[in-house]
């Protein structure tokens, strides 16, 4: 594909949001007739780049050239007129309208002032048959599977304008057969000379379909690579920001301490929690797992690999539909978070805003609420006790707030995270699950939280630590469970506990029993 003409060129793109530099001097080139993957962890700037290209966001600096001509789409409609169409992760169609209506909504062909339905149906049928999809276009969209709906969205995008097609996580709700079908269509489009930008978290798919890869990290361009020349491990290294070669000489300083744990972990008597074949349809494949008291178990893997899903099943946010869970060697059914809390668990969720803080409540209320829930409604924590607890944890975690009665939403992200930590520590848990506790937090606070985790483990607390940053995991964890494609694929401890080994396991290069 290298010989093809560049169809879209973005040069020196910069974009800032208040307080964040989302994109900094990023270059991006898309050729006609190629599938180009845009890779990067959360917050790398992928979606911002797409938004800039499609006119959803305005750029601060930089230029965009389409077939050599400078363009600057200001609205998605303008971008469409230039020939750039986007299919988003959640299908942006109306499920209760017919397939044909969905494809021509807003641009119905008219004869006189009457909509020409015959024409619409004919053209819809034709557009879909180009993708090898043969369905009755007069049926309402929701009678068809998600994959077909995805195809309709693509057909619509192509019919509107067909130079560049952007697919944002199109496969996350599709099963294997449907993905194959989608890829078949993409290959055909490629042959027609359409440039395709493809965003996904599934590495296997990247290697299956793409010709070239652009990697972003923290809003900056890491590089542009031919897919065939970039091994998976290298790609992961570039995404998380560690050069693979450098890592081969990684010191094994903490291996010694980890080794001791490995032996201990064999005796499951000390395990606080043990999962046997626990799993959930559509969430995480059945897995075995045990966490001892005084141990930090890390979950590693890329986004969407099943780390969070595992934590949710353990905590009862999502009900497991397979397997058994033992808490202190006693079979337990954790059917709800309340159950889990009563069993001595605590869970700092990944999405702080949505699942963590109660913005309009005070710091004090946010801190005591889990303890209150654990005690039950009737046994109200007295005002005095609330004050004492709040003061204690504000001091212990050095939460920066004007006072315990400040609203949590007015605190910075790092301090909000500390408040949630305080909330769980107040319940005096035996198992603390932390899902990305340091995301979006400044370096100082990050270190504080890591230190806290280690200290809690020393105080005989069992900790599950989930993080996208391997550095952080290695610094805090005794053992690391690796996840890929919603499966727990390995457990690494002792000698093997280093970046290279983990990255290779994530990439699937090496098997660990």
């Amino acid at each position, binding site marked *: 594909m290298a010989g093809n003409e560049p169809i879209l060129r973005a040069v020196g793109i910069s974009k800032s949001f208040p307080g964040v530099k989302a994109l900094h001097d990023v270059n991006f080139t898309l050729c006609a007739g190629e599938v180009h993957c845009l890779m990067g962890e959360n917050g790398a700037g992928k979606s911002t780049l797409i938004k800039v290209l499609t006119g959803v966001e305005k750029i601060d600096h930089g230029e965009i050239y389409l077939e050599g001509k400078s363009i600057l789409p200001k609205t998605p409609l303008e971008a469409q007129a230039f020939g750039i169409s986007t299919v988003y992760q959640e299908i942006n169609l109306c499920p209760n309208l017919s397939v044909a209506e969905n494809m021509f909504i807003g641009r119905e062909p008219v004869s006189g002032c009457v909509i020409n339905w015959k024409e619409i149906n004919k053209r819809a049928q034709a557009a879909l048959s180009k993708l090898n999809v043969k369905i009755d276009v007069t049926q309402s969209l929701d009678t068809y599977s998600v994959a077909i709906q995805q195809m309709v969205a693509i057909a619509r995008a192509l019919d509107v304008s067909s130079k560049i097609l952007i697919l944002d996580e199109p496969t996350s709700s599709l099963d294997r057969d449907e993905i194959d079908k989608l890829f078949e269509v993409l290959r055909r489009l490629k042959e027609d000379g359409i440039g395709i930008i493809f965003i996904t978290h599934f590495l296997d798919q990247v290697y299956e379909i793409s010709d070239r890869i652009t990697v972003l990290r923290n809003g900056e361009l890491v590089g542009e690579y031919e897919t065939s020349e970039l091994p998976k491990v290298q790609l992961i290294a570039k995404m998380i920001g560690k050069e693979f070669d450098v890592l081969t000489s990684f010191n094994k300083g903490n291996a010694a301490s980890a080794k001791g744990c490995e032996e201990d972990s064999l005796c499951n008597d000390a395990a606080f929690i043990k999962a046997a074949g626990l799993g959930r349809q559509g969430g995480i494949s059945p897995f075995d797992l045990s966490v001892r008291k005084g141990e930090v178990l890390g979950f590693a893997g890329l986004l969407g690999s099943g780390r969070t899903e595992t934590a949710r099943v353990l905590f009862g946010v999502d009900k497991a539909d397979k397997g058994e869970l033992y808490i202190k060697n006693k079979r337990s059914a954790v059917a709800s*978070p*309340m159950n889990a809390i009563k069993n001595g668990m605590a869970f700092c969720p990944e999405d702080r805003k949505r*699942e963590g803080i*109660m913005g309009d409540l005070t710091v004090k209320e946010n801190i005591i*609420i889990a303890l209150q829930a654990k005690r039950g409604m*009737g046994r109200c924590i007295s005002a005095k006790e609330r004050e004492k607890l709040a003061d204690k944890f504000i001091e212990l975690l050095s939460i920066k707030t004007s006072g315990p009665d400040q609203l949590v939403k007015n605190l910075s992200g790092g301090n909000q995270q500390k408040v949630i930590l305080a909330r769980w520590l107040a319940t005096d848990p035996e198992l603390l699950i932390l899902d990305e506790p340091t995301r979006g937090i400044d370096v100082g606070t990050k270190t504080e939280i890591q230190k806290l985790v280690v200290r809690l483990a020393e105080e005989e607390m069992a900790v599950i630590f989930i993080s996208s940053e391997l550095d952080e995991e290695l610094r805090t964890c005794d053992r690391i469970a690796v996840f890929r494609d919603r499966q727990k694929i390995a457990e690494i401890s002792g000698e093997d506990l280093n970046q290279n080994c983990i990255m290779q396991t994530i990439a699937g290069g090496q098997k660990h029993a």
Partner: protein
Amino acid sequence: MHDRLKLITKSKLFWPLMILVLMIIFNIIFVDDFLSIEFKDGHLFGRIIDIINRAAPLMLLAMGMTLVIATGGVDLSVGSTAAISGALVCSLIGGNFDGTVQNPFIIAIIAALFVSILAGAWNGFLVGKLGIQPVVATLILYVAGRGIAQLITGGQIITVYYKPYAYLGGFAPGIPIPFSIIIAAVVLVIVLLALKKTALGLFIESVGVNSVASRFTGISVVKIKFLVYAFSGLCAGIAGLIISSMIRAADANNAGLMSEMDAILAVAIGGTSMAGGRFSLGASMIGALIVQSITTTLYAVGVSAQVLPLIKAIVVIAICFVQSEELRHKLSGIFSKIGGARNEKATVKL
């Protein structure tokens, strides 16, 4: 001084109270004998007593509504539930001309309240357990409720001649103030105590602020929602008793008609956000008084029943203006300017 002023204007009760005071001032100026209270036959009479008496059912509805709205929901069925409660109590007591009862009075009341709680629990089940949108879920009973009330009364207006029944919405012997006021006050005190002595208030607010996070924290969101809707049903049931007692009859079609809107309005004027979260029962009670006094005042100054809704709407719009954040900002800007100017003067003097 300035800080204290700011603290006062920031209080949840400040704006509702201001509006109520304005209302009273208007009444004193334009309504004859507004402040006069007479003592006749061991009972108190007067316009103010009248307003509070009429506001009592609305206050009860507003109590339930406040808690429901605080969880981020709304209960449109309270008027219909009130009608069911009234219908049930009247048909159980029966329309005997000689003033005797077909069933004991207390049994009738208990049955009516039980059914009201059941109606509320139904709403709670739909909203909490099945996750149906509150407006849609409670709309079901809003529509069906009056039909159920009609079924109970057999499509007729049952007039009750049993004397003690009239006490609920009027005067009980030996008590100078209307009995409905006492009922509302007792319920209010019980609720306030429950909120203070248990963590219910905190849980309700937390569900309203962020129900997902509440679940993660171990709060049973379903249970809380179920509870508040059931409580709202109970409040509507008590209000229904008072309303039907006032006319000594069960009118399935008109009892509590549009009262759900008044209750929502009372809560809104009280300053509780429709999106849920922080709530103030006290402010809602003042809101209920305001809503009732608008109606009573307009009648008193001679606005006809036909035009009343229009005038009421205009007054409500005016209140909303006063309550709006934007306007408050501008107002407090003016306040601080005046305050600042005063401070400057003071320093110059020094």
